């Protein structure tokens, strides 16, 4: 495709940041969030010749998907699917990746001048490492004497104050956090490229574009919000993302063990709807993926622990996608026990087991069972609250509002700003990727209309073109 025809701002994609003194850049599109939705959107736009900046708050792109073990319904390795997309985005000449960035403001300026531009003001938090100099050798990480819980491994093992975020992180560059650093100087001593910058400061970046796609995903509802389930303080009660790490090939223990003492669990239970369909937590909606990920994890567990009893306490199973019902039936055939019940509360038991109090909905009444390990299927909350940062409309559930959900699901109330993936509401990877493709297409259509309009500016057709921009932006 002739990129020049669509992309008049082809060349000026300059951004400095990460250790320079601030920076700015002009792109065709901004993609906020570097999870699978953001990456797919950026790749689809870049393959059409549009320049994109992907703005990610974490030190690595990849979002939740790169942290998963395997994915339903195919049981493909999550990393095997995500890593090539991450690498393709990192190597694409039309894509600029910006990590460790907070969006301070995203707004449209000069809207009356042919649609104006979207301007994003960002703060890039310091890595305390010169990203150009760092070769990702991990010598600093090995030398650092400080251990702190590694959130990338569910907190089940330690990481150093300076480290490469995780084994398949992109970029493979070290990051040092000052809150855990004792400033001993060891990392600087061993770094072969003198990349350590203890005094690096946050930087302001200003990006300009004509379109933006919000792909800010979700965060898991916190275990600490649910009093009946122990507020996160009962040993061996973990959340579903922690179980993803226990099941992952590069997980903290290299296998599934009970975190309180390393015992191989004999009996594992899932509590469904632990953070969804629950007005007491302010989450009235169904998070859509929890039934399927619990079934997936249960199947993986019965593969890695063939002798273990696996129980899923559920209200109803929502196996909504293609081949999902079959996946559920396969799990039942494998011997996974499905108990139709609402779990009322959990209690710690001496010896590390967890007591589950539940109400059996098939008539057996109130009952109690003990399990070695309990997994809470927590729900999905919006990954970003734009608040005062961006005047995009938010729906009643807190996710980004889509103004034409049936006909153009990626359209937001803000002209030229689109949404993809879990940022618009809970969804699985299949739906996320489909929606990302749709958002890229809508953004491309909008950009093409803008380019045509710029070419025709002040001609008799200008009015018609302006109308077509509005149509692309608002359906």
């Amino acid at each position: 495709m002739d990129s020049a025809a669509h992309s008049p701002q082809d060349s000026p994609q300059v951004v400095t940041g990460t250790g320079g003194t601030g920076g700015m850049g002009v792109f065709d599109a901004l993609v906020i969030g570097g999870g699978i939705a953001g990456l797919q959107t950026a790749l689809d736009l870049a393959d059409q010749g549009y320049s994109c900046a992907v703005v990610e708050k974490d030190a690595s792109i990849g979002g939740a998907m790169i942290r998963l073990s395997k994915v339903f319904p195919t049981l493909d390795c999550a990393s095997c699917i995500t890593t090539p997309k991450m690498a393709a985005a990192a190597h694409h000449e039309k894509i600029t990746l910006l990590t460790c960035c907070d969006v301070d403001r995203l707004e449209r300026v000069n809207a009356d001048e042919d649609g104006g531009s979207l301007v994003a003001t960002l703060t890039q938090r310091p890595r305390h490492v010169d990203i150009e100099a760092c070769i990702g050798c991990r010598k600093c990480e090995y030398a650092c004497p400080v251990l702190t819980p590694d959130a990338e491994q569910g907190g089940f093992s330690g990481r150093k104050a300076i480290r490469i975020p995780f084994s398949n992180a992109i970029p493979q560059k070290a990051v040092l956090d000052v809150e855990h650093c004792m400033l001993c100087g060891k990392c600087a001593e061993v770094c072969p490229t003198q990349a350590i910058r203890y005094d690096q400061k946050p930087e302001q970046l200003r990006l300009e574009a004509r379109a933006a796609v919000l792909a800010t995903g979700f965060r898991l509802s916190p275990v600490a919000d649910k009093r009946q389930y122990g507020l996160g303080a009962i040993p061996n009660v973990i959340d579903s993302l922690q179980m993803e790490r226990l099941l992952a090939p590069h997980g903290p223990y290299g296998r599934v063990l009970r975190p309180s003492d390393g015992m191989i669990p004999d009996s594992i239970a899932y509590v469904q709807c632990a953070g969804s369909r629950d007005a007491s937590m302010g989450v009235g909606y169904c998070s859509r993926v929890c039934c399927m990920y619990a079934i997936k994890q249960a199947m993986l567990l019965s593969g890695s622990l063939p002798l273990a009893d696996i129980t899923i306490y559920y209200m109803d199973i929502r196996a909504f996608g293609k081949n999902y019902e079959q996946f559920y039936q396969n799990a039942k055939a494998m011997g996974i026990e499905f108990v139709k019940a609402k779990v009322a509360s959990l209690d710690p038991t001496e010896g590390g087991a967890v007591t589950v109090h539940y109400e059996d909905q098939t008539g057996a009444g109130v009952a109690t069972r003990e399990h070695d390990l309990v997994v809470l299927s927590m729900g999905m909350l919006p990954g970003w609250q734009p608040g005062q940062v961006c005047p995009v409309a938010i729906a009643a559930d807190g996710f980004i509002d889509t103004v034409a959900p049936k006909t153009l699901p990626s359209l937001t109330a803000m002209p030229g700003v689109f949404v993809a993936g879990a940022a618009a509401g809970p969804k699985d990877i299949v739906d996320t990727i489909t929606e990302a493709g749709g958002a890229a297409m809508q953004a491309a259509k909008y950009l093409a209309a803008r380019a045509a309009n710029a070419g025709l500016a002040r001609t008799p057709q200008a009015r018609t073109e302006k109308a077509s921009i509005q149509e692309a932006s608002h359906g």
Partner: protein
Amino acid sequence: MTQAKTERTPGKDAKKDAMKALRAERAQWVGPATAKAAEHKKAQKAIRACLAQASATPPEIAAATGLAPDTTLWLLASMKKFGEVVEADKTGAYYRYALAAQAPESGEG
């Protein structure tokens, strides 16, 4: 010779002074991080001493070192990540852990 030792090298001194100033500026984090590192260093030393005798399960290591079982497993997982310990055979419901032969030192931790 003595003179050479005390001679001021401007580049090095400037770096030292800058680190000193940063340490003062970040005292709220440097203090707790130093204390945590010392605590973990001591605990890892105890684990190494225990495993130098023979491989052991996390509860056995916890009993021998006086560490809590969950802390023991957390430290073992961290030491495993940096190649200091390896998983050995299984005893009942637990895996045993052993020191890795000629494992690279994970910092001073």
